[in-house]
C-alpha cells in the first residue's frame, strides 16, 4: 500500500507538468487545426533556455523559467509567421510538413550547438516526508506552477478580449473575421501561447530531470496521448489528461515492469481514439 501511495504521488506531480506541455499542443490543434510537430523541440529549447540562463547568467532557475516562457511566446509568433501562416488553409499534410521542418531545423541547430550530450541543472529545494511519501519540492513547485499556468490560461481565454477572440476563431474563423476579429494576429497569438506553454513545461522539467536536445520528443508523444485523452482543443481537459497519464505512470510499475509503461500508454491512445475520439472530457466547445 505504501508503494502504491508513493508511486501515485510521484505520478500525480509529474502529471501536472505533462498537462501543461499538452495544453500547448491542444490549444494550437484546437484553435488552428494544426498538429504542431515542433512541439517537442520547443520543450527541449525550454530546457536549454533555463539551463543557459541559470548556468551562464546565474539566474534563479524559476526566474529563468519565466524568461523562457516569454521567449517561447515570441518564438511561437515567429514560427507562425515563417512556417504556418502561408499553409494555414492548405490541407493538413502541409501544416504537418511545415511544423516538421521547424522540428528538424531546431533539432539540427540544437545538435550542432549543444550536441546530444545530457545536461543537468544543479538545483534542489530539498524533500519532505509524509508517511511513506517523500516529496521532492522541485516537483511540488512544478506542479503548483502548472496549476497556476492552467488557471491563468483559463482566465485569459474566458475573461480577456484576446482570449475571447481566440475562442471565437477556434469556433468559427470566418464568422469571427466578419465580426472584425483580426484572425491572423489571433492565430499568431494562439501559436505563440501554445509555444509558450511548451517552453514553460520544458523549463519546469529541466529543474528535476537531466535532458538533451532530443528530450522533447518523449513529452511530445505523451502530449499526443493526453490531447486525445482530454479532448481536442480543451486546455482544462489536457490538464486532467496529464494527471491521468501521470497516475498511470505511477501505477503501472506497481503491477508490471516499468518498461511496459509506454506500451500501455499507447494502447490507451488507440483505444480512446477508437471508442471516444472526442476524448474523455469532450472536444472544444
Amino acid at each position, binding site marked *: 500500500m*505504501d*508503494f502504491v501511495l*508513493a*508511486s501515485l504521488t*510521484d505520478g500525480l506531480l*509529474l502529471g501536472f507538468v505533462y498537462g501543461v506541455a499538452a495544453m500547448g499542443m491542444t490549444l494550437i490543434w484546437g484553435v488552428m487545426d494544426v498538429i504542431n510537430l515542433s512541439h517537442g523541440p520547443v520543450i527541449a529549447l525550454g530546457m536549454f533556455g533555463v539551463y543557459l540562463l541559470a548556468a551562464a547568467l546565474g539566474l534563479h532557475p524559476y526566474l529563468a523559467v519565466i524568461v523562457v516562457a516569454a521567449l517561447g511566446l515570441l518564438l511561437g509568433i*515567429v514560427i507562425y*509567421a*515563417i512556417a504556418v*501562416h*502561408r499553409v494555414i488553409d492548405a490541407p493538413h499534410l502541409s501544416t504537418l510538413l511545415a511544423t516538421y521542418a521547424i522540428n528538424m*531545423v531546431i533539432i539540427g*541547430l540544437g*545538435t*550542432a*550547438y549543444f*550536441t*546530444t*550530450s*545530457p545536461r*543537468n541543472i*544543479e538545483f*534542489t529545494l530539498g*524533500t519532505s*516526508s509524509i508517511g*511513506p511519501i*517523500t516529496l*521532492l519540492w522541485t516537483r511540488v513547485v512544478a506542479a503548483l506552477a502548472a496549476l497556476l499556468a492552467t488557471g491563468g490560461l483559463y482566465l485569459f481565454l474566458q475573461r480577456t478580449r484576446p482570449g475571447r477572440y481566440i475562442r471565437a476563431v477556434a469556433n468559427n474563423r470566418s464568422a469571427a473575421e466578419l465580426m472584425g476579429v483580426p484572425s*491572423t494576429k489571433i492565430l499568431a497569438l494562439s501559436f505563440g501561447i501554445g509555444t509558450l506553454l511548451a517552453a514553460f513545461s520544458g523549463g519546469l522539467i529541466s529543474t528535476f*530531470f*537531466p*535532458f538533451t536536445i532530443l*528530450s522533447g520528443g*518523449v513529452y511530445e508523444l505523451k502530449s499526443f496521448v493526453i490531447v486525445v485523452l482530454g479532448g481536442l482543443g480543451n486546455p482544462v481537459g489536457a490538464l486532467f489528461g496529464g494527471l491521468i497519464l501521470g497516475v498511470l*505512470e*505511477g501505477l503501472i*510499475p506497481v503491477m508490471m*515492469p*516499468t*518498461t511496459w*509503461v509506454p506500451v500501455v500508454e499507447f494502447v490507451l491512445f488507440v483505444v480512446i481514439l477508437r471508442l471516444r475520439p472526442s476524448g474523455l472530457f469532450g472536444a472544444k466547445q
Partner: protein
Amino acid sequence: MKRKVYLMILLLLAAMLALAACKPAPAAEEAAPAEEQAPAEEMPAAAEEVTLTIGFTASQTGKYETSSGRQVRGFNLWMQQINDAGGITLSDGTVVKFAAVSYDDESNKDRVQELYTRLATEDNADLLISPYSSGLTAAAAVIAEQYGKVMLTTGAASDATYKQGYTQVFQIYTPASRYLAGAVDLLKATDSAVSKVAFVYENSKFSTSVVEAAKAYAEEQGYDVVLFEGYDPETTDFGSFINKIIDSGAEAVLGGGHFQDGSTFARQLYEKEVAIKFLALLVAPPEPDFADLGDAAVGVIGPSQWEPLAAFTPDFGPTGDEFVQSYTAAYDEEPSYHSAGGYAAGLVLEKAIRDADSTDPEKIKAALDAMDLTLFFGKIKFDTTAEAHGLQIGHSMVYIQWQKDADGNLAKQVVWPADGATAEVLYPLH
C-alpha cells in the same frame, strides 16, 4: 505582412549562420593521412619509415561522450608519445609511426557499422581500436572480422562479443561477467547480516551481461535477490524503480549502466533519502565527474578497471604515476579508467608490433595471442581458445568508493580488494 515575413526569414537565417559559426569542431577528426603509405603486408626496405593508420570512432556526441572522450584522449596521448619518441624501430631498421583516422559515431550503433566499414575500406586502416561501450563495440567487431582487421577493444566489457568465433578482436578490459562479483564479496565481508539485494540496471548489452553474472554469483553466495529489473537507456526518471526498491526491502542495490543514467539514479536515490546500506553502480562512480553530484556521491561504490592509486609494477610502458603525470599535463584533467584503457590499448598494440617485429597483421595477431604482460593498467592476457578467442583473462577489477576527506572534499578511495585498499569502506551508505 509579406515584408514582415521576409524580414523574419532573414533574421532566422542570420541566427542560423551565427549559430553555425559557433558550431563545435567538425565530427570527423581526421589525422593527416599517411604519406605514401606502404601496404602493411609488405615488409619495407631497411631504414624505411612506415605509417600505420589506426582507425576508430569516438562518441563526440550522445550519451557516451564523457567516457568515450577520455578513452580517445588516453589513446591519442600514447600515439603522440610514441610518434614524438621516433616511433618503433624494427630489427630491419624500419621505423613504424602511427596516424589516426577517427569519426564521431554519435553513440549510435548504426553509425558505428557505417563508419567502421568506411575505416576498413575507404580509409584503409591497418589496425582498429573499438568505440566506447559494449553495444557499439559489438557492432564494430562484426566489421573488423568481416574485413580481417585486428581490433583492440577498450571500453567494452561484455563477454558475448568474444564468444562469436571471432579471431581478430582482442579485449583490454576485465569482462563483464567478473565486473560486480567483487562488489558482492565486499558486501559480504562488510556486513554478513545483509540478505536482500536489488539489481536495477540499464537494458543494454554490457549492463545486462554484468548483472546476470552478478545475480548468479549473489545467489550462489546466499543472497535473496528481491528485485531484478532493467530500465530503458534513456531513462531520466527513476521514481518507479526507487519506489520498488523501497517496497522490496532491499538493503543493497547493485546495477546501473553508463555514466548519465548511473549518476542520475544515484542522485535520485539520494534525493529520495532511500534507506539502503550499500550502492554499487557500473561505470559512473569511477568517473571524476561523478563528484559533481556532491553529497549524493558519498558512499557510492563502483568497479573500476584501473585507478591511479593502483600500484602495479609494469614490465612494459610507463608506471601508473608516470601515466597520470603525462595525461594530466596533456589534458589538464585527472585520468579515469577509460583514459587508462585507451592508453593501454596503444601500449598493447605497440608491444604486439615490437614482439612481432613486423607490421604484418598476421604476425601482430600472433603476438597478441602469445601476450602475457603487466602494464600500469594491470595484467594483460588473451584467451586463445576457439570458444572465447580474444577474451581478457589476465586483468582484474578494483572497487572504489567516494568518501569525504578531513577537509570535507570528495575523494575516491580503493576499498576492495582488501589487500589493495586505501581506506576502510564507508558503511552503511546513508
